[in-house]
């Protein structure tokens, strides 16, 4: 009988050996892949053990984690939720964070590789790690003014500091309240998220950087830049001035907005054509310059490049045209030209900044929990779009556009404002996209701005850039200039 008991003992040993092996495989061998499984809520809970850093605007938190009594230990709060929703994004308990919450996630959660030494220390000392705070470049006055000025319109406003590329305001409407997506109830978060996903006007999309619209007439300064840079044109170069123009190779006839010729003469200067925002001279100019020249100029301003601000900003498009009709249309920002509000603000900034394009950026610095500045984001140059002379010429033309031209609604007493309006067509019967892009003060540019109003500002095809978008820009500039 003992021989049999011995054999049973061996079987028992084998059974336990199997358990030793299986637990080892799960807890050590496969642990990393199990921990990385999206359905593993423990990994998420563990991330909540960390007091996530704050997102700061002028030293005040616009997103912060406060202790809570539940499993998650901390509740993410957005004190001025809707005002900063495009900037902060949201940090949900299920799913990926967006906005700065997403793009600066490793810094905020304290899990970036830079924090490795801290993590080791925490392992030894038993301290819970704490995330870093992120200070933004946002100017609260500009942000509030832009938010108020845009009102209930669907669209976006971006304000840049021309010399540095700092983003001073970033407003996208309709907005949302990130607090509703930060509650500790997955079902509730999912319901809110689905509702926002289906809501009119796509509140979850940051329109300043991720909505592409035809830029319309706001693209004309780019074409003018290309012309001046070529050396073959000056501001006073004359273009034929018909009251209608048949696009080459088609029977399509285009007009100026006035449905007449651009001013009285049989020719019109490039300067006057911009000030009066005439389409025909710029269509003619585009054909003369050719697709390559305009595309090269547009790319120097930042078209066809996506930026990280550090959120991903979509690339504005100037694709280049072999079709002459489309090329002509592209001269006034139609055809397949598209741009984000950010890009058009960058254009205005570069023009006012002597032709130098700065990298747009939203993060001022990263601050450790013990209040040491870990990282500052110094202004970096994207490149030179034009010579200083060209930039100054275009800038002066834009100033005249406001002071004596069709962008009259952006005039501010005592301040020289440069600007360009745009009234872009989408489809035959679709409402226009209304633009304003500009800078102020012209003699010492502190602010560059782009305003986009979607859906024709509720006026269908009756509104235009000057009547809808320019007053919004005016209000924002007045606020930041202290007027």
């Amino acid at each position, binding site marked *: 009988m003992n021989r049999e008991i011995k054999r049973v003992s061996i079987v028992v040993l084998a059974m336990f050996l199997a358990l030793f092996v299986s637990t080892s495989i799960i807890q050590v061998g496969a642990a990393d892949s199990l*921990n990385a499984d999206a359905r593993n809520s423990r990994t998420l809970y563990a991330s909540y053990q960390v007091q996530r850093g704050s997102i700061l605007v002028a030293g005040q938190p616009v997103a912060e984690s406060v202790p809570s009594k539940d499993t998650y230990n901390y509740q993410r709060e957005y004190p001025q939720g809707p005002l900063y929703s495009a900037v902060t994004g949201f940090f949900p308990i299920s799913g990926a964070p967006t906005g700065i919450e997403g793009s600066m996630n490793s810094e905020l959660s304290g899990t970036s590789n830079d924090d490795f030494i801290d993590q080791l220390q925490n392992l030894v000392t038993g301290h819970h790690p704490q995330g870093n705070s992120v200070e933004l470049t946002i100017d609260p006055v500009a942000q509030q003014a832009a938010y108020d000025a845009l009102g209930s319109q669907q669209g976006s406003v971006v304000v840049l500091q021309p010399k540095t590329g700092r983003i001073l305001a970033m407003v996208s409407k309709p907005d949302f309240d990130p607090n509703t997506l930060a509650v500790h109830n997955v079902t509730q978060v999912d319901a809110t998220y689905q509702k926002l996903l289906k809501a009119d006007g796509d509140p979850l999309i940051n329109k300043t950087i991720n909505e592409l619209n035809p830029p319309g007439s706001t693209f004309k300064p780019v074409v003018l830049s290309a012309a001046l840079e070529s050396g073959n044109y000056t501001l006073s170069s004359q273009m034929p001035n018909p009251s209608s123009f048949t696009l080459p190779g088609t029977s399509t006839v285009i007009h100026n907005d006035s449905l007449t010729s651009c001013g009285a003469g049989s020719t019109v200067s490039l300067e006057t054509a911009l000030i009066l925002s005439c389409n025909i001279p710029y269509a003619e100019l585009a054909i003369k310059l050719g697709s390559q020249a305009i595309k090269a100029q547009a790319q120097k301003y930042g078209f066809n490049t996506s930026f990280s601000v550090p959120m991903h900003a979509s690339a504005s498009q100037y694709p280049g045209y072999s079709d002459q009709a489309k090329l002509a249309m592209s001269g006034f920002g139609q055809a397949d030209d598209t741009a984000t509000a950010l890009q058009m603000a960058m254009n205005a900034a570069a023009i006012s900044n002597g032709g130098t394009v700065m990298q747009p950026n939203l993060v001022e610095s990263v601050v450790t929990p013990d209040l040491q500045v870990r990282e500052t984001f110094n202004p970096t140059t994207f490149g030179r779009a034009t010579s200083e002379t060209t930039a100054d010429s275009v800038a002066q033309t834009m100033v005249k556009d406001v002071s004596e031209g069709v962008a009259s609604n952006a005039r501010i007493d005592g301040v020289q404002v440069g600007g360009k309006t745009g009234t872009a067509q989408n489809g035959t019967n679709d409402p226009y996209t209304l633009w304003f892009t500009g800078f102020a003060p012209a003699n010492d540019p502190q602010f560059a701005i782009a305003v986009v109003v979607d859906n024709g500002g509720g006026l269908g095809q009756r509104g235009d850039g000057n009547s809808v978008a320019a007053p919004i820009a005016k209000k924002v500039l007045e606020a930041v200039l202290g007027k």
Partner: protein
Amino acid sequence: MTAPTSSTTAVSSRPGAATAPLRRIRLPKKLRNLELGLLIFACAINAIAVVLVELGALGHLDFTLVFLGAGLSVLVFAMHIVMRYLAPDADPFVLPIATVLNGIGIAEIYRIDIANHDSGWESAAVRQIVWTAIAVLCAIAVIVFIRNHRVLQRYTYVFGFSALVLLLLPMLPVIGKNINGARVWIGIGPFSFQPGEIAKIALAIFFAGYLVQSRDSLSMVGKKFLGIRFPRLRDLGPILVLWIVSMAVIVFQHDLGTGLLYFGLFLVMLYVATARVGWVVIGLVLFVGGALIASRVLDYVQGRFQNWLNPFSDHVYNATGGSYQLVQGLFGLAHGGLLGTGLGQGYPTVTPLAESDYIIASLGEELGLIGLFAILCLYLLFVSRGLRVGFAGQDDFGKLLSVGLAFAVALQVFIVIGGITRVIPLTGLTTPFLAAGGSSLVANWIIVALLLRLSDTVRNQPRLVVS
């Protein structure tokens, strides 16, 4: 080896007169002193575990549970003192191992209570402590009233009949209760009990008694085939009956684990009694065949197999009765990793039934692989002490019974932890000593008492022949 089927007093009549005084000189207290030392160590570990849980999960100390735990320690020490008088030569490791496993279980259950904000009678830990007290008292009663294990052999068929009744109880209309899809409970008022746990012991006693009687006919005759001797057809009766009982448990009570446990237990005891591999082959063929048919016919068995084979497929994971629990348990274990999160620092409550069926996943999360290895080693040591009694035993009934009881614990550990770690399909059995559940505690502490009694008898007997 011969089979002394009758309980003669041959032991004391042979060189007994000479050995009795010798035993006293041999300082039998040595074993008990070792046990006392280990018990103090075990109780210290348990107290530290509870304190760590409170510091980890509550952030401060709450002495209520420490006092309750101290009460339990007193009870265990009482059992130790009883044994000093009534079972002085019993194995010194069994009681401390049971104590420390029981204590760690209470600490982890308490930890889950804290996460669930349960207190008072809502608290599973408080109920577990009360059940432990009852279980230890039962164990003491067994030590006190069963002075010689061979008494049990006299009631072989009484135990067999009791086992059957206990198994059938949950099927009765009024008191039978269906919990989590398995009909293995009886409920009287607020109390519920799993009679199958006690039936396990009754069955082991019955098997031991029955096999000692009939092993000759079961092992001597039969044809040889492929080098293995197979029994005659008419001797297949007992194994078929057991197979039918196990299958009935699976089919009617929806309890795959218990079916496997009973059948495995019978098979091993049959093999040890008859030394015929043929029985094991027949048994395995029967069981695997039955399980395969069940996996096709019974939805719940089919589901268990699906969960086992493809737990991570979204379809299986999201299904009702799907692999959610299994996968969450695996996530918990992985989250614990090598070192564990520390008691009170993990998220065991994410997994359903974290305090009962999934206590091992909870412990693995918080104590890590190192902690699980320690627990597995404790079980292995416990089982090996039981098997050791089987080796050293003088009478076949005692040998069979101790092997049976030890193997029952080993098999149960294997079925539960193997199910959680995907060695075998998951079945709902309790982890001995650790999991929340009164019936399981009472049954396992009775096993402790029986093994102690058996080991005491073994050492009590002069070793004239050690084969």
